[in-house]
């Protein structure tokens, strides 16, 4: 049974180690912790004996805030949780509420959602790759990945008016029809992306320093990974072939053909391989979505839930009434509870929404992959060098916004 870490508060507790072991504090302001993660380590020379993550430095009480907002007002809050994958947060929350409402979403909205969620995954993986390589010491890759990420952010800006906090998906569809040149832009972007990924791979895969820092480091066996609730690319890097997009499809993913990359290496290198391959698979999904993009509306036909178009609101009495009602009173959601999960860039993201029949959610619980992955940190680092901790933190791809919420 893997250990999740015991608190290291003062003196080292290992047997007969009183004089040799040292307690080291790492973070919360440490560049390689990707935010405000604090680790307390007990080290024997340079070998990690125990490691204990202290989280909560970014706790904002988002779950509590959700309880005092209308259902539609929660959407912008979800962006701020995993701030590197905004569309995935929106999607998961909207799907959960739509499940509560039993609302059917038009085909075009579903496809655009898949398209943008996959772009979000590429965005998230690009940031991971750049910062992970930078932690290891390969600074160049960071500049390259951020060049491509910039184009994704520009696409997001064209769609929603915002680069990072998009809030583009709404309960019942999308905020508005995307701009006319959007699909051409995305097509142009993904035409060049495969060779860019080859470029990163050329910089890193054969690089002896990068290889030696990752190969055989941070071993996580499949049994430990499942026991510690690890999900996503970290789980697949440990040889467990499970992807929610394929195995429990949501939001129309059953219509797309893609491969789920798995690596049996169980180390940081395995996770690197899986994520790099996942970006290529996302490109395939985006290509299929662009080729088969259906026409039609992007909002469901539910005037009491979805805000009317601006023009209609100004000219039609009913639309004006609906708009006024939704903005001032919200809409009631039938009582019940749902747990909706999606495969985000980091792993299984889940929204547990409980409704008591009123216009405000009674409880919104967010299950984010980083929180669980952090539990596996000690198992991966024990008995390794202190410098490997940095490589392992990079390889599990955490965002502190989603851990502390």
């Amino acid at each position, binding site marked *: *049974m*893997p*250990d*999740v*870490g*015991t*608190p290291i508060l003062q003196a080292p507790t290992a047997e007969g180690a009183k004089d040799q072991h040292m307690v080291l504090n790492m973070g919360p302001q440490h560049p390689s912790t990707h935010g405000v993660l604090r680790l307390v380590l007990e080290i024997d020379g340079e070998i990690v004996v125990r490691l204990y993550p202290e*989280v*909560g430095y970014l*706790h904002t*009480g988002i*779950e*509590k*805030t959700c*309880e*005092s907002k209308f259902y539609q007002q929660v959407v912008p809050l979800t962006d701020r949780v995993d701030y590197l994958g905004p569309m995935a947060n929106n999607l998961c929350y909207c799907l959960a509420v739509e*499940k*509560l*409402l*039993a*609302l059917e979403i038009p085909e075009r909205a579903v496809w655009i959602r898949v398209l943008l969620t996959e772009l979000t995954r590429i965005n998230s993986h690009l940031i991971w790759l750049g910062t992970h390589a930078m932690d290891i010491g390969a600074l160049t890759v960071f500049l390259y990945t951020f060049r491509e990420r910039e184009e994704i952010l520009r696409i997001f800006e064209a769609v929603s008016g915002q680069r990072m906090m998009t809030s583009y998906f709404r309960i019942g569809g999308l905020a508005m029809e995307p701009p006319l040149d959007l699909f051409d832009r995305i097509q142009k972007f993904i035409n060049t992306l495969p060779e860019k990924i080859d470029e990163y791979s050329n910089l890193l895969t054969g690089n002896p320093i990068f290889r030696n820092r990752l190969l055989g480091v941070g071993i996580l066996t499949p049994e430990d990974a*499942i*026991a*510690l*609730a*690890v*999900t996503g690319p970290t789980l697949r890097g440990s040889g*467990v072939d*499970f992807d929610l997009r394929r*195995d*429990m499809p949501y939001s129309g993913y059953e219509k797309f053909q893609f491969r789920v990359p798995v690596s049996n290496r169980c180390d940081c290198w395995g996770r690197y391989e899986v994520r790099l391959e996942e970006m290529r698979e996302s490109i395939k999904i985006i290509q299929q979505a662009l080729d088969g993009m259906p026409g039609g509306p992007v909002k469901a036909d*539910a005037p*009491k839930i979805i805000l009317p178009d601006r023009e209609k609101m100004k000219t039609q009495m009913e639309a004006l009434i609906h708009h006024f009602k939704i903005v001032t009173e919200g*809409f*009631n959601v*039938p009582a*019940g*509870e*749902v*747990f909706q*999960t999606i495969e985000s860039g980091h792993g*299984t993201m*889940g929204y*547990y929404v*409980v409704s008591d029949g009123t216009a405000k959610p*009674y*409880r919104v*619980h967010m*299950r984010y992959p980083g*929180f*669980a992955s*952090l*539990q596996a940190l000690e198992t991966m680092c024990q008995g390794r060098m202190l410098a490997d901790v940095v490589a392992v933190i990079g390889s599990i791809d955490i965002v502190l916004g989603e851990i*502390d*919420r």
Partner: protein
Amino acid sequence: MAEAPLDTIAGKQAVLEKMPDHPAVKAVAAWKAESVVDALYDRGELSITVAPENIVEAVAAMKDAGFNAYEDMTSVDWLPSEPRFQLTYHILSHAFKQRIRIKAWVSGDSPAIESITSVFPGANFYEREVFDLFGIRFEGHPNLRRIMMPEEWVGHPLRKDYPVEGYR
């Protein structure tokens, strides 16, 4: 307003009779059907309510039945009703590609339940979070300390009687 979907199956007896092929229902029937308090199949999700003293047994039975991957646990505060706290566990099966929700209710004064970390070590942080934000104690948890709030914090923020703004 949209109606709740029609394929809702409410009640323990109805679920046991109408869904005998569902792997989780089979597991429940094989474990001991009489300790299930309630069951509900709603919006494609199966929930099983058990008595709080049976929670570890129930979770272990599910694990033996193939629900191998612990996913999530949290609590809901139903103030002022009694029992006040609803604990919700979500467990996934990689083999069946199904998820099950196990619920248990604990009382409002000095709420406590047994920890499931002996079955699923991955529940460690989640139980600490519920302890921190709801004040529910988990008996047998290896390290039951606050995780989000500072150690010296007074009160449990996600309880319904904890104000969203102003002073406590």
